[in-house]
């Protein structure tokens, strides 16, 4: 396994809107080691979202190189990027993005359906159950998203991101739709996963949330302006109630 999960040099993205060219990224360099917990901050219009799209292999840079887990993904076509997204990236979104009317465990199994692992249904189910267990949702596997609280839904999303054992978790404002206590809870899960060796890249505009990472970079005008190690704000997981919150379950009935 290579040392660097992300190795980006001279990353440039230019959007052409009619006659006007907008330079969203202007030769950005970034190296992320395996096992890091990185937060990417920046105001809107800074190029943060563009960076996130390229990091997540949803988009291609106009120029520059991007090595993800040792693979140059900057020139891949649509289908090749889909394969990379499936195998190497675990997405966590602000709005959870779970499939409605689909149980938690089925949501978590979803990436395995598109992968090349060739697993049987039982193997997929087992992997999904294990991932749910890791985010503390054991026992809620048959609940549908509408029966789960926001925090629980985000846990399902994290389990879905984990299930393929990707090279990195890419979380885009994962706490944007949650209250502060639940946000702490979710950040605690990321910290725990990071402690066990997972590389986590967190995109956020909230400084409080960014303080949960070990390293914070700030993007402005398409390049990285600040890059600093931070004293991690640890979430005390002991203070957090068990994940299967009976109150939330009652409330959604």
């Amino acid at each position, binding site marked *: 396994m290579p040392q660097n999960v992300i190795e980006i040099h001279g990353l440039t993205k230019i959007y052409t809107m009619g006659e006007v060219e907008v330079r969203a990224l202007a030769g950005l360099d970034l190296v992320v080691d395996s096992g890091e917990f990185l937060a990417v901050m920046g105001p809107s219009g800074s190029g943060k979202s563009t960076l996130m799209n390229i990091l*997540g292999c*949803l988009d291609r840079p106009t120029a520059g190189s991007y090595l993800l887990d040792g693979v140059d993904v900057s020139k891949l076509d649509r*289908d090749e990027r*889909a394969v990379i997204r499936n195998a190497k990236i675990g997405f966590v979104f602000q709005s959870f993005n779970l*499939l409605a009317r689909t149980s938690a465990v089925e949501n978590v199994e*979803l990436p395995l359906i*598109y992968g090349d692992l060739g697993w049987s249904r039982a193997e997929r189910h087992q992997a999904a159950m294990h991932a749910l267990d890791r985010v503390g949702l054991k026992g809620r596997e048959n609940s549908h998203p509408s029966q789960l609280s926001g925090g629980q839904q985000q846990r399902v999303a994290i389990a879905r991101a984990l299930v393929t054992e990707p090279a990195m978790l890419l979380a885009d404002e994962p706490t944007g739709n949650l209250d502060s206590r639940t946000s702490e809870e979710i950040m605690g899960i990321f910290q725990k996963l990071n402690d066990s060796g997972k590389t986590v890249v967190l995109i956020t505009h909230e400084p409080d949330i960014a303080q949960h990472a070990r390293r914070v970079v700030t993007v402005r005008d398409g390049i990285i302006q600040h890059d600093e190690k931070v004293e991690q704000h640890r979430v005390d997981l002991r203070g957090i109630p068990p994940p299967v919150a009976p109150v939330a379950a009652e409330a959604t009935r």
Partner: protein
Amino acid sequence: MRSSVMRLGNITMVGLRAIARNKMRSFLTALGIIIGVGCVIAVVAIGNGATKSVENTINSLGTNYIMLFPGASTSSGARMFTGNSTLTADDAEAIKTECPAVAYVSPTVRAAAQVVAGELNWGTSIQGVSEDYPLIRSWNVSQGTFFSDQDVKSASKVCVLGSTVVDNLFPNGEAVGQIVRIKNVPFKVLGVLDKKGGNMMGQDQDDTIIAPYTTVMKRLSGKTKIDMIQLSAVSAGQVQEAQNQIDGVLRQRHRIPPKGDADFQMRSQEEIAQASGQQTAILRLLLLVIAAISLLVGGIGIMNIMLVSVTERTREIGIRMAIGAKGRHVLLQFLFEAVTLAIVGGALGIAFGVGASLAVKHFLQWPIVVTTASVVLSFGVAAFVGIFFGFYPARKAARLDPIDALRYE
């Protein structure tokens, strides 16, 4: 390989679930196909049944059968069919004696009358024919006897009854030897004909009384000309020869030059079958057009709903793409959904069509022929409609940009 087959199975499952989640909408979408396929099956079954029964009646005429009837005639330079027959009993006699390729000849006259037997009466058609008639139509008596050439020559007041007439005038079944009064003329019943059933026009062929043509002309209709001549050639191979000979004899008798327009027409059994076959072909074409249109409408319904579904599920498509679905996975998912709707609709349509056909057969007593070909064909067309009309929405889904799709509200 194993994994890609398995993945295909998983993706088809995804499509199936989407259908199951929207039961009402899926049903309404499939309804277009259900009705389309059902109508095709039912209408084709009824059409086939009608064709079959027409074919049966025509075939029952016998392959030697020739029909000779008066045609357009030229009077004062104007060609028209006046309704006045030019055929006489002597023509029939001449054909019988002068045409070696003709085996049997029967002049035919028709009349309609109210027939009375005791206290019962029944309106029916009277056919005046010669003693050759049973041989031409291969139609025999089941009781009693047919009338003889002597009866024809002497214009005897005798007759033979069709079974429907017997049912109505002699409910006890004892008809032979009884007297029926036709226009107040007493006729002696010599025999009862075999039951023959409906003819190609749906008329009951057994609702008739058959008497010597001489008697009918003299006592009932008062006509001097005959309505038509029914004949049979000595063999199926001699039909054309017989027609040529008849043509020659009649032209001579009616003084028509060889190139002139004849005042009579002939139809062999084969020609009748062909003419009817042409009608049926037109009917079939019409049915096919209707079927094609109804399936087209059903297909457009599927496309419409699939397009709505793709738009509605843009975000779902974005999620699937973000976690690794390739364009073709999404394409397959939606295509499979459309094809399933079409195929399930097709299967239900077949059940509906066959059920409707059987109901028609049971309640209306129509002849119905459900063919495997129509079932297989309409099912195939339904599946094709699903692929054809499902492809565009599925491709639209597959080409979505994951970033835009994820952002879609």
